[in-house]
């Protein structure tokens, strides 16, 4: 997994609440068996005026000029500013994959949906929660300033505006540690092999029916 430490990057404001994962990456692209290549289809229904199918040449499609990600000033944004309950709906990890593939590395919103929030950390995408008031202020400043950049510092747990105003954010220490160091969850869990085996041995005695298995 990629490490995340600190960055100062361009911000794109997506002013909608309850953005669901179907909107982030529509289902027709979930047929891929890869982890990469979803970027051109991030927010596909909103970004393009014509319907999209996998395997199309997306550079030939008609862009929706009104959609925020299509505006020149936000082209190279790496921070997404969003409203409450971002990422609700399906558990598809294709949503963070699409955001990352597009170039987004951090998001700021008043709240995120549970599974999506969790999936972000598995992929080195940092979701930052700030109060609705502060997010509002950032939306306002971002809309009013071309080239608006924020600094997101995971180590210090702060978001800093171009004016130098600093907002602290909360984050689970274990998640922070893994993200800062780009650690692999599976390898860490396998360090507990003995504990897993001991648990299984105990359970086999107490609840043997849980180990009948499906066979194949």
């Amino acid at each position, binding site marked *: 997994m990629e490490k995340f430490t600190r960055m100062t990057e361009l911000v794109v404001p997506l002013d*909608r*609440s*309850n953005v*669901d994962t*179907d*909107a982030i990456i*529509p*289902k*027709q692209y*979930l*047929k*891929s*068996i*890869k*982890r990469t290549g979803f970027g051109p289809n991030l927010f596909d*229904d909103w970004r393009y005026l014509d*319907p999209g199918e*996998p*395997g199309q040449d997306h550079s030939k499609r008609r862009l929706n000029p009104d959609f925020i990600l299509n505006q020149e000033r936000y082209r190279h944004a790496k921070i997404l500013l969003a*409203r*409450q*309950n971002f990422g*609700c*709906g*399906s*558990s*598809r*990890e294709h949503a*963070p994959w699409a955001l990352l593939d597009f170039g987004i590395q951090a998001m700021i919103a008043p*709240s995120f*949906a*549970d*599974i999506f929030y*969790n*999936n972000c950390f*598995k*992929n080195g995408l940092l979701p930052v929660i700030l109060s609705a008031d502060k997010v509002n202020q950032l939306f306002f400043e971002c809309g009013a300033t071309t080239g608006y950049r924020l600094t997101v510092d995971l180590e210090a747990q702060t978001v800093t505006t171009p004016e130098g105003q600093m907002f602290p954010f909360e984050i*689970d*220490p*274990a998640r922070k540690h893994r993200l800062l160091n780009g650690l692999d*969850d*599976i390898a*860490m*869990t*396998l360090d*507990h092999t003995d*504990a*897993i085996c001991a*648990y*299984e041995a105990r*359970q086999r005695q107490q*609840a*043997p*029916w*849980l180990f*009948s*298995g*499906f*066979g*194949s």
Partner: protein
Amino acid sequence: MAGKTLHDKLWDDHVVHQDDDGTCLLYIDCHLVHEVTSPQAFEGLRLAGRTPWRADANLAVPDHNIPTTNREAGITDPVSKLQVETLGRNTGDFGILQFDVDDPRQGIVHVIGPEQGATLPGMTVVCGDSHTSTHGALAALAFGIGTSEVEHVLATQCLLQKKSRNMRVWVNGELTAGVTAKDVILAIIGTIGTAGGTGYAIEYAGSAISDLSVEGRMTICNMTIEAGARAGLIACDDKTVDFVAGRPYAPKGENWERARLAWQTLHSDHDAVFDREVSLRAEDIDPQVTWGTSPEMVVPISGNVPDPSQQTDPDRREWHGRALAYMGLEPGTPMRDVAIDKVFIGSCTNGRIEDLRDAARVVQGRRVASNVVLAMVVPGSGLVKQQAEREGLHRIFQEAGFEWREPGCSMCLAMNADRLQPGERCASTSNRNFEGRQGRGGRTHLVSPGMAAAAAVAGHFIDVRDLH
């Protein structure tokens, strides 16, 4: 010390290791796998040179992509086909049981788990699919995970998790005739909102919940994710045990007796303390229909399309306005006046045998209205289909003008050929009415099977109780 909630008990039973900060290594008893969220996980295993920790704790089935007509012809979409074949190859390579497309047991992953006795009371159940919450109806701790976690479970039989808080939703009283589990969960989501359960595991309790069949309880737990909570739970009672008894993978003989005893403890203690409690009266719940692009945008069938300008919060005003524009509806329109183009009866929410019976009762002796261009029934599994055919339900549907399809996810998410055209309006028994969910530009109204059947014959939404 206060007693434990059902969620506490299931959690505590499965903790392998706990870190100082509360992060737990949680043991997973059953992992369900489907074609969409697993390929990258298997690829990850291969790249790291790992093998499944316990291959026989996994059960796989293709459901999202497969066609619901003309199965003999195979999958025509090459991208879908590759994904389904990849599941076959991966399960074959790693020694995991798969019910393939031709297997009579094939179906939607959340329908076949309980049907096969693969998901049992007291288990932890996960799947790379948010509607895994369905299995909580059996007093299991069941929740959806992402693909990285799918890989993690395959490799370690465990997940790194932090415990959710406890929430309980009471539904006491008696449901009136014609009101179903689907209406109850829509009413709950309408009350607490789609983020109302974020961070919680929700236990459903009260007389109206215990009066439901286990299948109805699955409908409730299924849509828990639409209320923002990852897991929904219902205590184990005699109905649960009877439901499980005799299923192919249910415990047998001495194990059955031991399991039954163990399952008696699967309820919240009377003195357990919940972080949040919500209460609804069963008598207050009417058949529901959604009007917007979020499951919380719901009204009783007697209601009207709401007026966004009445919303005081500017965020919500904007959100509701956007939803109405997408749905092509005017504020103040009675829901009964909203005409439909298509009807979809199926999905892991409402694709079980009781759902089909409910719909068939309404349809019997009637015809699909002439303005409805397609009405389809997609059973949740091959075995549900067989059972329905034994009961003659397929004929009732076909005689009324419905199409009778092969099992799968179908138009619940329109990954296969079953989808809405832009602007088409659908009465759907599925669980999500998001923009584009059933096809780009498609307009979804979530309802119960009986309400979908009633809309099919009327050509517009109507109170199913008026047809009884």
